[in-house]
C-alpha cells in the first residue's frame, strides 16, 4: 500500500536537506529536457542511452582507480570523461569503421554496461554508488555535485540560447547550413559536447536511467503538442524540470526510489501530452 502523503511538515522542516537534490533535479531535468529536442529530432535517442551508460562506467572506473590503483579520481570527472569519449566515438562516421551507426551504438551501450558491472563487482564497498549511478537512487546530492551540474547547465544554456539559430539550422539541415557558410562542424561539436558533458555530470548526481529519461521523454512530450520549434524547446525544458522535481517529491512522499520515480513521471508527462493533443484535435474538429 502507498505511504500516507502527510509528510509536508516533515519535508518543510528538513527542507535544507532536500534543497540540493531538488535544485539538482530541476537544473538537470531542465537542461537535459532542452537538449532532448535535438536528441529526439536528430534520431539520437540511443546515443543518449549509450552516453549515459558510459558515464556510469566512468564512475565505476573512478572508484576502481581510488580503491585498487591508489590514485584519487573524482567520480564526476570519470563520468564526464567517459561520456565525452563515448560522444566523440559516436560522432565518428561509422562507415569509416565499416560499421552501421546502430552497430556502433549497440557496441558502445553493451560494452559500457557490461564493463560497469564487471568493474562494480571488484569494488563491493562502493556497490551502492554503482547501483545509484546506473538506476538513479540520488536521495542526496553533494554541494560539489550541485555546483558542477549548475555550472555545466548554465554554460550549456547560455551557449545554446545564444547560438540557437545556428545550432538548429546546422542540426536540421546540415548541407544547407554548410553551403551558406555556417561552421557546421563546430556547431555540431558544441551540441555533442553539450550532450556528453550534461549526461556525464548529471548521471553522477542522479543516475543514468533518469538522465536518459530526461534527455528523451521530455522532447517526446513536447513534440506531441505540435507547437512551434521555440515553444517545443520551452515545453521540453519545462517537462524535464517537472520530471526531475516532481519525481523527487513523489519518491519522498511515497517512499519510492528517486530515479525510477523521475523516469516514470517523465513517461507520464508523455501520456498527458498525448491526451492533451487528442483533446486539442477534438476541439478543433468540433469548432
Amino acid at each position, binding site marked *: 500500500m502507498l505511504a500516507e502523503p502527510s509528510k509536508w511538515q516533515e519535508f518543510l522542516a528538513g527542507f535544507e536537506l532536500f534543497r540540493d537534490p531538488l535544485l539538482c533535479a530541476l537544473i538537470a531535468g531542465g537542461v537535459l529536457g532542452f537538449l532532448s529536442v535535438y536528441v*529526439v*529530432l536528430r534520431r539520437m535517442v540511443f546515443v543518449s542511452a549509450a552516453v549515459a551508460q558510459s558515464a556510469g562506467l566512468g564512475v565505476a572506473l573512478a572508484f576502481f582507480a581510488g580503491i585498487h590503483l591508489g590514485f584519487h579520481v573524482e567520480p564526476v570527472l570519470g563520468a564526464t570523461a567517459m561520456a565525452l569519449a563515448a560522444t566523440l566515438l559516436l560522432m565518428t562516421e561509422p562507415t569509416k569503421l565499416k560499421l552501421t551507426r546502430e552497430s556502433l551504438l549497440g557496441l558502445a551501450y553493451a560494452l559500457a554496461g557490461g564493463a560497469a558491472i564487471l568493474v562494480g563487482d571488484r569494488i563491493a564497498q562502493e556497490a551502492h554508488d554503482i547501483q545509484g549511478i546506473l538506476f538513479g537512487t540520488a536521495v542526496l546530492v553533494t554541494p560539489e555535485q550541485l555546483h558542477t551540474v549548475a555550472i555545466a547547465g548554465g554554460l550549456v544554456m547560455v551557449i545554446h*540560447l*545564444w*547560438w*540557437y*539559430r*545556428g*545550432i538548429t*539550422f546546422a542540426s*536540421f*539541415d546540415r*548541407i*544547407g*547550413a*554548410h*553551403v*551558406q*557558410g*555556417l*561552421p557546421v562542424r563546430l556547431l555540431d561539436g558544441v551540441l555533442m559536447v553539450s550532450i556528453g558533458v550534461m549526461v556525464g555530470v548529471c548521471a553522477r548526481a542522479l543516475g543514468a536511467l533518469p538522465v536518459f529519461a530526461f534527455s528523451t521523454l521530455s522532447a517526446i512530450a513536447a*513534440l506531441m503538442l*505540435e*507547437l*512551434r*520549434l521555440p*515553444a*517545443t524547446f520551452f515545453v521540453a525544458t519545462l517537462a524535464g524540470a517537472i520530471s526531475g522535481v516532481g519525481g523527487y517529491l513523489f519518491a519522498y512522499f511515497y517512499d519510492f526510489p528517486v530515479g525510477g520515480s523521475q523516469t516514470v513521471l517523465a513517461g507520464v508527462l508523455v501520456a498527458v501530452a498525448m491526451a492533451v493533443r487528442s483533446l486539442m484535435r477534438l476541439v478543433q474538429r468540433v469548432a
Partner: protein
Amino acid sequence: MKTADPTDPLMAEHSVPATFTPGDPLLTCEKLVIGYNDKPMLPPIDMVIRRGQFVAVVGRNGSGKSTWFKTLLGMQPPVSGEIRSNSPEMRSAYVPQTSAIDSLMPLRARELAGWGRLRGWSFLWPFPRKADRDAVERALETAGAKAIASRPYRELSEGQKQRTLLARLIATEADLVLLDEPTAAMDAVAERETMQRLCSLAHNRGMGVVVVVHDLEVAAEHADILFFVDRETSAFVMGDAQHVFCHPAFRRQYGDEYCHRAPKGPHRGNDAR
C-alpha cells in the same frame, strides 16, 4: 494542362526572353576530377556556371551526378582539379528535397524560410534583425507562400512545401543556388510550375541555378544547358538538349527517342570524355 496561377508573383515574372544570354561566370571547374578515395569516377571536367543560367544535371542513378553535386557543394573533396568561385563575395545556397526536412520537425513555413537569412557567423546575433525579417516576408510573398507562412511545414502539400523552400532560397539572395531533385514526389503540374519558377529566378533575377532532375523532358524544356553524367561510359556531356540527347553516350543509356524529339537547332556543346 493547368495554367500558372496569375496571382503568383514569381510565375507572373516568368518570361524567358528570346534573346536571353547568360552573364558573368559564377563558378569555374578546372580539370575537376570527382570520385571517392582518390579513385576518379569521371574524366576531368572543365566548365563554367554563369549568372542567369539555368542548368539541369541529368543521368541515371549511380551515374556520378550526386558525387559531382556533392563536390560542387563542398561536401566531398575532389580527387584533383579545382572549383573556383569567380567572386569572393559570391553567395551560394542549397535547397534540399521537400522530403529531406524531417516530418517530425515542428517548423512553420516562415521559420524554415528564415534559415535562408543565416550566413556564416550571422547566428551570433541571437535574434533576426528587422531587415532579415522583412526580407523573409518579401521572399514568402514572391514565392507565393505568404498564405501558408504560419502553417506547420509537415502539414503542407508537396507543392506548398516546395514554395516554402523556394521562399527560403529567395531569402538567401544567393548568386548561385543548387537544388537536389526539387521536383521529386511532385505531380506533373507542380513539377512544371516549380521548374518555371526556377527558370524565372535564373532569367529575371540573374541567379545561377543548378538542378539535379530526373525528368528529361522537363529538363529539356526549361534548362539553358544540360549536363549529362554517365559513370559507365566515363562521359560528362554538356550543351543544349539536342546536343546532349543525341550524344552517343546519352543514346546508349536512354535510346534514340529523346534525340528524335529534341528541339532542332545548331548543336551546341562541350564534352569531356
